[in-house]
């Protein structure tokens, strides 16, 4: 069986990649996808730990995170849509009416 800490290390790497992506990418949609990657890295962590601890809390947590992430997607896309209708761009550097 694959030891738990392999999963944890993998998840940590994915999480870091996501976080780095948020900081360096300039396209709002890609930033958003990076955030999703972070959330899913946490999901992987939680599932691996639920297996290790032998209780269900971790798995329940994952369900909830997935539902919340879906709600965030809906809202996030709506906000991006609203901006595109105004401005025809989703580059966060060009969205600079207020000081960023």
């Amino acid at each position, binding site marked *: 069986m694959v030891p738990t800490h392999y999963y944890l290390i993998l998840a940590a790497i994915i999480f870091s990649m996501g976080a780095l992506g948020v900081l360096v990418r300039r396209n709002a949609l890609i930033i958003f996808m990076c955030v999703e990657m972070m959330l899913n890295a946490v999901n992987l962590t939680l599932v691996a730990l639920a297996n290790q601890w032998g209780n269900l809390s971790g798995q329940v947590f994952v369900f909830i995170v*997935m*539902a919340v992430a*879906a709600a965030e997607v*809906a809202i996030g*896309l709506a906000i991006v*849509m609203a901006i595109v*209708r*105004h*401005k025809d761009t989703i580059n966060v550097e060009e969205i600079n009416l207020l000081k960023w």
Partner: protein
Amino acid sequence: MTSADYLPILILILIAAPFAGIAILLPSVLGPKNPNRMKQEAIESGMIPFADARRRFPVQYYMVAVLFIIFDIEVIFLFPWAVSLNQLKIFGLIEMGVFLGILLIGYLYVWKKGAFEWE
């Protein structure tokens, strides 16, 4: 009334037209020019035009996709519930009824708002 009576009007036109023409042309030749985006913007009864009015914008697909994501993901709560319904019995049934009832309100809301109509 003869045509000669119209002569003063003809003279007036002959004087006024060049005068008006000069008055319009002269400032545009002599006056300072610094056009900017704000000045060249179309005037829409005082409102700031924020987009090209002719741009096509297919919003229906987006609406359906988002609604699908939201209602689809709720199924993940049904699976564990279905597995453990034997033990939860009537309590589980009521709880799921409450959950689906809240979802139903959201569903009725988007329906009444016409979000499912493609056209």
